[in-house]
């Protein structure tokens, strides 16, 4: 009996500690002085690498899934506290919002690139289409930004399907080139469309508002004055949490498995009775929708939509986030977005050397860790759904074949 109790205790302790560590790391990276947070980011990367190597992350992962109620509660508390703790630094809050937006983009791309190994070079185009869609709707038709986001998601979802349909015929590099060409076409054409402001873009998109509570103004909470970025950080964290949940559910569902299968070997997937075209289209649609949501949110946050923000280099950056974070691991790509946006903002101090250092970091990262910081995990359904995984007809002998992880 005492053994059970300690097990229970451990189940609540590790998730709590993990959540605390995650939020502390986030807080310090954002809060720290700019010349110090780069070394701090490096410390985080090294810590992740060592912990991953020693299997600590794996066991923390398992423990968090086991005690997921406590873990999620702790994460929620952290999410509420973070903007409050950063309230004195609007710039740090701004970076926080950017991290969330890019994490959503990376999650969207992950469906195609991480799960199904289809490298889409046009996430920034979807990002832009989302922003432009809501921009046109809210500026010209005066609809609410909330509907703007929803419609942007629908539009980019449909466009994802339209882009996906012809690319079904292509594979590998050819698929990459088609999406690359689409990205370039988007950038070249959007500056020529006068209706959306051409190269000047559209300024003055309305901010989000809940009733009379405008997210674009500073508000007082319990005596702390929160700059308007804090409102957006709350919203962005909420959005990220929801979409992260969706991404995980998809990843664990039969769709996720099918996409993995397609990514590894299409012929085998076909033999297993997977409808390849349907699954690939699904990946494009849901990925497009994610990018569209991020774009619409971004447009309203910045109150500005212009062609310069959605170019090819932006797509490359999103791709790098997925690779650096860890392909096919929603958590990993979120970490990737966090690290790259963090590093990018901090590197701004190097002005002339910024891009050079960025390129060097990328090369070293690929060189040292091609599988990403937090590589994909074996799906542990037994742990997740408290269901015994049964393989084969003999139920008694072959239970729980998937690796049990702790100790």
């Amino acid at each position, binding site marked *: 009996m005492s053994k059970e109790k300690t097990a229970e205790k451990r189940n609540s302790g590790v998730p709590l500690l993990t959540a605390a560590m995650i939020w502390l790391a986030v807080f310090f990276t954002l809060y720290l002085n700019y010349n110090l947070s780069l070394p701090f980011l490096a410390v985080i990367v090294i810590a992740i690498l060592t912990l991953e190597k020693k299997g600590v992350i794996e066991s923390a992962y398992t423990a968090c899934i086991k005690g997921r109620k406590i873990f999620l509660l702790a994460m929620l508390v952290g999410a509420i506290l973070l903007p409050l703790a950063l309230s004195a630094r609007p710039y740090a809050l701004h970076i926080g919002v950017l991290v969330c937006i890019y994490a959503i983009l990376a999650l969207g791309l992950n469906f195609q690139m991480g799960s199904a190994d289809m490298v889409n070079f046009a996430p920034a185009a979807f990002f832009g289409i989302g922003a432009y869609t809501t921009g046109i709707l809210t500026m010209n038709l005066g609809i609410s930004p909330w509907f703007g986001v929803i419609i942007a998601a629908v539009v980019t979802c449909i466009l994802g399907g339209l882009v996906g349909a012809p690319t079904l015929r292509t594979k590998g590099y050819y698929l990459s080139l088609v999406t690359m060409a689409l990205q370039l076409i988007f950038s070249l054409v959007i500056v020529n469309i006068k209706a959306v402001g051409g190269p000047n873009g559209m300024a003055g998109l309305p901010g989000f508002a809940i009733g009379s509570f405008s997210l674009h103004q500073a508000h007082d909470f319990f005596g702390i004055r929160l700059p308007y970025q804090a409102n957006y950080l709350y919203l962005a964290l909420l959005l990220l949490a929801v979409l992260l949940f969706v991404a995980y559910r998809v990843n664990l569902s039969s769709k996720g498995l099918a996409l993995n299968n397609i990514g590894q070997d299409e012929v085998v997937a076909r033999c297993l009775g997977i409808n390849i075209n349907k699954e690939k289209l699904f990946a494009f649609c849901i990925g497009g929708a994610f990018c569209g949501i991020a774009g619409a949110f971004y447009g309203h946050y910045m109150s500005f939509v212009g062609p310069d923000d959605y170019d090819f280099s932006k797509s490359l950056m999103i791709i790098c986030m997925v690779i650096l974070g860890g392909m096919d691991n929603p958590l990993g790509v979120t970490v990737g977005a966090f690290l790259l946006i963090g590093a990018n903002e901090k590197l701004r101090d190097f002005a002339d050397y910024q891009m050079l250092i960025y390129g060097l970091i990328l090369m070293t990262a690929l060189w040292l860790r091609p*599988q990403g910081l937090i590589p994909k995990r074996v799906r542990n359904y037994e742990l997740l759904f408290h269901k015994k995984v049964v393989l084969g007809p003999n139920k008694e002998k072959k239970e729980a074949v998937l690796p049990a992880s702790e100790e």
Partner: protein
Amino acid sequence: MELLGNGSFLIEQLMNAIMLGCIYTLVAVGFSLFFGVLDVVVFCSGDIAVFGTFSLMGAYMIFETAGLTAMLPTPVWMMLLMGVAAILCAALGVFTYLSSIRPFEKSSSLMPLLSTIALGVVIRETIGLFFPLGRNPQRFPRLIPSGSFGGHALLSYRNVTIICVTFLVLLAVFFFLRKSKMGNAMQAMAQNKRLAAIAGINIRSVAITTFVLGGLLLSVAGFLIGAYYGTVRFDNGSLYGIKGFSAAVVGGLSNVYGAIIGGMLLAFIEVFVSILPGGAAYASAVAFIAVVIFMVAKPEGILGEKTVEKV
């Protein structure tokens, strides 16, 4: 406008397209050489070419300050100049292989693509930072004398040189691939790596030779870019990279001959869309749309072989 009525107008545009096509072709041949032999997309090819342009300019500056241009006869220092640029580009090619291709031999094909993109950024920024006034536009020295054959503007020494150089370089590449032992080894490797290794081909040295050859080819492309436009900027490489890659894919990535057709096709589309009133803004866009249509309708490219998947 008298589009067809005036013969010289069309011929002039044809010439424009051919010249542009020459440059795209050389970069595209670089792409397909790398892809054909090693199955990798070396995305920094455009940057290697521009690096070639800059190393020519740098060498010229050094030669001039050292007084070599005045001391030696023109053909001699010209050859020396080309030699320096060619060696530097070949070295960069080998560096590309060692830093961005070889470490990823066993991982997904995506890795070399990304790491060469990153290397492209590094090359570009290094030029911008360490070349004197590297971020400003640079004037390429006039290496080809001005003037023309028979006083015809279209047959200027420069245009003729560019076409001849492209032709000769391509011819040399084909002879090398067809006739030399190393070229045959490359082709063997392109067809089946494992079998080539079993047949006693040293895969490493073939790979390095491929990159030396590619670097040489791209240094010529760099020379042509400098000579044709007269002005380069450190970030021009990404443009030629994307155009060259598109051309290579249209032609069928692994096929060196296809790259020529692809390069010319892309250039012709661009030039002839530019002729239309107000079309210039859409020239690149139309070229890329053509690439997309092509990819979807004929994914294996013009000369690529159709691969039938066998189970």
